[in-house]
């Protein structure tokens, strides 16, 4: 990324071209066609700086952290803790110890369920989620309900894929102990009114978990402004490595929670009679963490921050409008998810063609999209479809990518004509 482009207020075609040069994966042929990568909601590609940073860590800095007195261990510890501070700045958390490194969004939500949930939620209590949740924000709560006798309440959505705030208000009650809602829907693109969701829950003294897996790569997130109590996201969906993710929690909550896993690093002292747990955040990071992953994630978010999240968001909104228009022109195509406040997700069904067939035909055109239920089976039931085809955008997506998608979908229609 050149300095000139980084300084421009708007991310235009030249800026995106420069960005694309940082992603080697985008420049390859698939089935003899140039790759058109539109599966960013599943995982984003990685810029070379991230790949190089992870390689450099393993090549020159590899050591275990928090223990060694030798130079490499000190360097690795320093890089790991600086990564935590990078994440803190990225989501605007108050303290670095409010950033816990986990494997991903899924583990983050399981952590909350099995620590906060097991100690604060009991029989007859209610946990509030929504129809548009990913399985990772459904199943951990169902498991908790089985363990505790608590009950899951589900906020319905409109046909456009928007959360029914009126129903949400109605569902919130004296029995509600926790609200866990997705910030941006992976299957619909809906950006939920999370500030209102938090405010309404807090008015009843109910804490809120936000699943930010599809948000952080596409918009600036400020957990203090949102005032959410927990925020979770995965590194690999924000240009970083797989296997690393983040759980943000307010200090007061994290301090009141028991540890998640027991082991090394999460203890202050151990004897067979009694173990004293370590301070935050280490209480929640048992065992050797994914050091390279955390360092790579920090590089990824620094890259994204240098481009500018606001510029990324504005650019992706332009692309979304372009893509919505392009796809709407295809006969028999119906978009799933037409919320007024939406991120770069184009989910659709076509009369008479199963998404899986579309996926195969598009793949042969070099167009990588996702087909299926997107780990949102209850949402698919609500939409009345077994599956959808989903194209998801990123900062390196171009109008030419959208054009290629449209052409490939038209070809699929011809095959099935």
């Amino acid at each position, binding site marked *: 990324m050149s300095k000139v482009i980084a300084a421009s207020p708007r991310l235009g075609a030249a800026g995106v071209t420069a960005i694309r040069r940082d992603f080697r994966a985008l420049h390859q042929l698939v089935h003899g066609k140039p790759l058109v990568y539109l599966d960013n909601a599943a995982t984003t590609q990685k810029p070379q700086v991230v790949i190089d940073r992870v390689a450099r860590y393993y090549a020159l800095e590899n050591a275990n952290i928090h223990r060694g007195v030798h130079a490499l261990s000190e360097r690795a510890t320093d890089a790991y803790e600086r990564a935590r501070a990078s994440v803190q700045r990225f989501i605007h958390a108050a303290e670095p110890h409010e950033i816990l490194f986990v494997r991903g969004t899924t583990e983050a939500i399981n952590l909350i369920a099995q620590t906060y949930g097991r100690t604060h939620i009991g029989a007859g209590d209610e946990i509030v989620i929504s129809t548009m949740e990913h399985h990772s924000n459904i199943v951990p709560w169902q498991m908790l309900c089985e363990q505790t006798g608590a009950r899951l309440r589900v906020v319905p959505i409109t046909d456009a894929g928007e959360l029914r705030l009126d129903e949400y208000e109605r569902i919130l009650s004296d029995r509600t102990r926790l609200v866990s809602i997705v910030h941006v829907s992976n299957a619909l693109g809906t950006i939920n009114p999370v500030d209102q969701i938090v405010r309404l829950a807090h008015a009843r003294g109910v804490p809120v978990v936000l699943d930010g897996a599809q948000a952080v790569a596409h918009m600036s997130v400020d957990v203090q402004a949102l005032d959410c109590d927990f925020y979770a996201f995965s590194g690999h969906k924000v240009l970083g490595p797989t296997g690393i993710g983040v759980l943000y929690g307010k200090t007061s909550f994290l301090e009141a929670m028991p540890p998640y896993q027991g082991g090394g690093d999460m203890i202050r002292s151990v004897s067979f009679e009694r173990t004293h747990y370590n301070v935050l955040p280490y209480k929640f990071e048992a065992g050797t963490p994914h050091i390279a992953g955390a360092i790579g994630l920090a590089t990824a978010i620094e890259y994204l921050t240098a481009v500018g999240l606001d510029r990324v968001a504005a650019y992706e909104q332009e692309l979304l409008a372009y893509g919505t228009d392009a796809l709407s022109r295809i006969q028999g195509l119906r978009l799933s998810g037409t919320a007024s406040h939406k991120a770069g997700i184009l989910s659709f069904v076509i009369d008479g063609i199963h998404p899986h067939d579309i996926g195969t035909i598009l793949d042969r055109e070099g167009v990588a999209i996702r087909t299926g239920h997107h780990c949102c089976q209850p949402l698919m039931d609500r939409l009345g479809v*077994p599956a959808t085809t989903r194209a998801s955008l990123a900062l390196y997506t171009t109008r030419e990518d959208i054009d290629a998608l449209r052409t490939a979908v038209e070809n699929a229609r011809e095959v099935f004509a």
Partner: protein
Amino acid sequence: MSDLQDLYQEVILDHNRRPRNFRAIEGGRRAGGYNPLCGDKLTVYLRLDGDRITEAAFQGSGCAISKASASLMTDAVKGKTLAEADALFERFHHMVTAAPDAPVDELGKLSVLAGVRQFPVRVKCATLAWHTLRAAAEAREAIVSTE
């Protein structure tokens, strides 16, 4: 596009549009099949005379490959014994998983699905109906999953 044309041959598209034996059979054996990868769900129904299949039918929703395969299968196994149907599944399975350049066994109309071998992720779609048929033959009521 040639491998795509192999996959989506006119016969397959026709069976997808107008699946044969697309109905329930009352009072016979049946089993449900599910492919979580793409959400294909189908039920296979059998009527038996001893161990001979006198009627085979299916219902459900799925991609073109799974629907066409189920449609072709119900035609193909009618009149066969359960052992013969099972042997046919073995040969069919071999056909759709063989190397792309391997010769295609003569399997009658089922041969139109040989193109699936060039699309390994679609093998499950093509074999879902057959796995479900096997379960129905054994009168297992449980849902069969390809995972």
